[in-house]
């Protein structure tokens, strides 16, 4: 069934499969597309978009402009970037703007699912509309005040000026009368020309929350405090699918501060966003709850995943990846025949383990159940899914649940899944409505994530006698995210293949892409840049291996594979997803891919002479409709320790709304990419994640970070061009570029992530 759904989105899972049983039609203001006309981009997202200025902007008599941020802030800067668009278009002075976070209500605000690198890409235009409408209403109000023609007045930096007379009136004075006016028709909007932008595309913008963060005065989900609130932690079943058999809380109840224990129900598969079940310890403070949990004596029933073991599963995947067959994703020419008859061939296997998002703020939610309603404060990437899921579990209507979206102490996909909000809501209900803050410890976070999948990628290439590529074969094996929503799923889905398996623009005559089956044995979920991680790692490592085998320059081979500049309709690559974007508006543009490769190799001085033990590695990857290429430089010492003097990374994300936050996102993606490549691994034994804190699950620290990251943004000042994503596309090229650099430095090829101690063994 799901194969037929184009534009599959993270929210569609909830709306489509869990709660409604069908994909909701999206009601859009002012749009009258035929019912069978495919919808793309923001039009295809659940609840679409809203651009009513009265929903997003209010103006106080003192002139303070309050702009609503309806997407969740998790470090990507969306609370700055989107309100800034409104402010710019309405000629508001940013220093007099306040930003208020929207609660979870997509009918009011439009889609709020903060994932898929979509926020600015989808809401740049709606937010310009909001600003344009508000500016026009202020101008109309001023013209009425002075009884002059509207054409004689102009809004400018927080006031409206009557141009012939030079009279001025501030936004605060106009607020009341402007709000009474009808919202102008979208057809009549006028937009500021880009040359008059004050904030959009400018480099000096400061993060709206920066000062509060630097002084420790922000409120994250972890910081919410309510009167009469208690604290709770949950003892979850150790392996996914296990359930509570019995427990003894005698010693727990002796811990000073512990109030009581209670149980949460487990749910049968699929996992959805349902709580895992287990025993809740309620206490007067978090520490007492944690102490009490340690004293619980619990017996669990084993489940279907209790023998999940990473080493054995890897062997299983390896076998599948090395056998012809599985779901055929794309077949062009006859790759098998070409491989049989080639002058030379190459074959390699790549393995990428499970990963945990591990945002610095672990999952946490504070709930206050009030009988016929419930308030939940939480750092959620999915406010509406949170509302719907909590409502379902409390048997309330969604409108009886209020989701207060706090700042997120990181998300990376983990906080798209509201299981922890449900736990808090059920606990508050079980406590007869006492407010409760339910905290996940780091151990809970790392052992009960919705993990990044585990992948085995098999690649083969065939060459003619001149070293030119004749065939490309890629078999990708990995449990699908969709298994979390439909337990029978054993194949990856269109949106996973569309992350760098099918949508490779290679000018090779014979191409075969296959997907053997793989079952999931834990909860699989989104992790920043998702399936692009394994696919880019394998594909971009393999191209470097091809170049090495043919004794050719990697960049030359990469550009040759990409072929001449052209725009490829993704549907011709059997990519039915295209990140949910229109294939006409967002074709795969190989010229843009070539240019980021040329830019980054130029800036990094590709091919420069380096001392022994040092090397450069290249990788390029198209994801979230953005083009990225990276050159990583490494130094490997005699003990096999890797340091990274610098990373150069070129990004073409189309028009840039907030270049400073784009740079910070790309820098962060480089470091998270280094982290997963060097250190990242979750492995399972007896169904349980072996790692449980930052000692076992290591992440990159200051001493392992690149010394320098040079972000090269491709210039683009035409704001009518479609925007690309920013939060995720920096990640995928980093691991392969790093491992290609390690090869250049050491002649040791890393095909299994993480790198960790592999260079010491040599």
């Amino acid at each position: 069934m799901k194969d037929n759904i184009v534009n599959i989105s993270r929210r569609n899972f909830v709306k489509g499969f869990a709660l409604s049983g069908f994909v909701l039609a999206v009601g859009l203001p002012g749009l009258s597309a035929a019912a069978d006309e495919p919808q793309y981009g923001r039009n295809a997202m659940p609840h679409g978009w809203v651009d009513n200025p009265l929903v997003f902007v209010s103006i106080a008599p003192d002139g303070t402009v309050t702009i609503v941020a309806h997407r969740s802030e998790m470090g990507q800067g969306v609370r700055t970037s989107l309100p800034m668009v409104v402010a710019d278009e309405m000629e508001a002075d940013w220093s007099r703007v306040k930003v208020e976070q929207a609660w979870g209500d997509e009918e009011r605000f439009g889609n709020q699912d903060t994932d898929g690198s979509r926020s600015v890409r989808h809401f740049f235009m709606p937010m310009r509309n909001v600003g344009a409408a508000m500016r026009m209403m202020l101008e109309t109000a001023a013209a009425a005040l002075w009884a002059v023609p509207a054409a004689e007045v102009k809004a400018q930096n927080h006031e409206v000026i009557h141009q012939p007379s030079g009279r001025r009136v501030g936004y605060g004075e106009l607020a009341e009368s402007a709000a009474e006016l009808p919202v102008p028709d979208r057809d009549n909007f006028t937009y500021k020309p880009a040359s008059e932008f004050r904030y959009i595309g400018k480099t000096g913008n400061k993060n709206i929350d920066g000062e509060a963060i630097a002084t420790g005065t922000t409120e994250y989900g972890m910081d919410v405090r309510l009167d009469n609130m208690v604290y709770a932690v949950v003892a979850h079943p150790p392996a996914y699918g296990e359930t509570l058999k019995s427990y003894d809380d005698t010693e727990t109840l002796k811990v000073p501060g512990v109030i009581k224990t209670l149980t949460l129900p487990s749910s049968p598969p699929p996992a959805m966003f349902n709580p895992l079940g287990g025993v809740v310890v309620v206490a007067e403070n978090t520490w007492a709850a944690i102490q009490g949990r340690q004293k619980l004596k619990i017996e669990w029933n084993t489940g279907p995943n209790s023998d999940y073991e990473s080493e054995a599963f890897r062997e299983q995947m390896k076998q599948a990846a090395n056998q012809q067959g599985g779901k055929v994703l794309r077949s062009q020419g006859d790759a098998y025949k070409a491989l049989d008859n080639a002058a030379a061939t190459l074959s390699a296997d790549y393995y990428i383990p499970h990963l945990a998002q591990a945002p610095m703020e672990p999952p946490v939610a504070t709930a206050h159940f009030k009988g016929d309603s419930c308030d939940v404060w939480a750092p959620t990437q999915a406010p509406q899914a949170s509302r719907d899921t909590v409502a379902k579990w409390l048997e309330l209507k969604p409108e009886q649940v209020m989701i207060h979206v706090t700042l997120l102490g990181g998300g990376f996909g983990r906080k798209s899944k509201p299981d922890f909000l449900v736990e808090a809501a059920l606990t508050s209900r079980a406590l007869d409505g006492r407010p409760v803050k339910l905290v996940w410890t780091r151990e809970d976070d790392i052992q009960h994530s919705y993990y990044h999948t585990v992948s085995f990628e098999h690649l083969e290439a065939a060459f003619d006698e001149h070293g030119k590529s004749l065939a490309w074969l890629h078999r990708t094996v990995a449990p699908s995210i969709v298994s979390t929503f439909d337990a029978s799923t054993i194949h990856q889905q269109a949106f996973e293949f569309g992350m760098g398996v099918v949508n490779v623009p290679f000018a090779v005559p014979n191409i075969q892409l296959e997907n053997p089956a793989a079952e999931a044995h834990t909860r699989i979920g989104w992790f920043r840049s998702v399936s692009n991680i394994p696919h880019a790692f394998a594909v971009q490592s393999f191209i470097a291996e091809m170049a090495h085998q043919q004794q050719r320059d990697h960049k030359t081979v990469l550009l040759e594979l990409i072929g001449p500049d052209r725009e490829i309709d993704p549907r011709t690559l059997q990519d039915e997803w295209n990140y949910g974007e229109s294939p006409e508006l967002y074709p795969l543009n190989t010229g843009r891919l070539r240019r980021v490769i040329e830019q980054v190799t130029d800036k990094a001085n590709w091919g420069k002479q380096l001392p022994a033990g040092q090397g450069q590695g290249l990788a390029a990857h198209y994801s979230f409709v953005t083009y990225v290429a990276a050159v990583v430089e490494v130094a490997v010492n005699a003990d096999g320790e890797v340091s990274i003097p610098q990373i150069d990374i070129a990004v073409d994300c189309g028009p840039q709304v907030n270049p400073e936050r784009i740079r910070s996102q790309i820098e962060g993606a480089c470091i998270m990419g280094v982290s997963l490549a060097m250190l990242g691994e979750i492995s399972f034994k007896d169904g349980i994640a072996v790692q449980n804190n930052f000692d076992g699950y290591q992440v990159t620290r200051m001493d392992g970070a690149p010394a320098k990251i040079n972000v090269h943004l491709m210039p683009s000042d035409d704001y009518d061009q479609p925007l690309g994503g920013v939060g995720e596309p920096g990640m995928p090229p980093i691991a392969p570029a790093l491992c290609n650099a390690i090869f250049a430095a050491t002649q040791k090829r890393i095909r299994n992530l993480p790198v960790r101690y592999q260079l010491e063994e040599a």
Partner: protein
Amino acid sequence: MKITINEQVHQIDVPDEMPILWALRDVLGMTGTKFGCGKSLCGACTVMMDGQPIRSCVTPVKQAENKNLTTIEAVSRQPAGRAIQAAWLDNNVPQCGYCQSGQIVSATALLNSNSRPTDDDINNAMSGNICRCGTYTRIRDAIKQAAKNLEAGHEG
């Protein structure tokens, strides 16, 4: 027991072994200091005890008796703290910001003890503080900028 936080004496009635972190956050409502790992592995909970950076998530509150604690809420009372905060804003260091209280306290303690930290000094002082968003290169730049500003006699 009595503990002194940011030059203010607090009387709290908690078990001796309760970590300072939870006394601050849950008992006193001072939520600027963050919970990240509970095992002294990530540094989000860093505060100063008599000027030394410590991990409050594993330090029993009893150990803070007769000592002076400084948290993120009061680092601006120190010249190095002000310089660090100013450099943080100037470099737009934070992304999600959750780890930054700990980063700023660690960086302030570093500059208090070493006015001209080298890259190695910064690695040694700051590698206990994890940032998942990946702000390390900007943290490094900001620490150097703050050091330079302090040396030049201003705080940013």
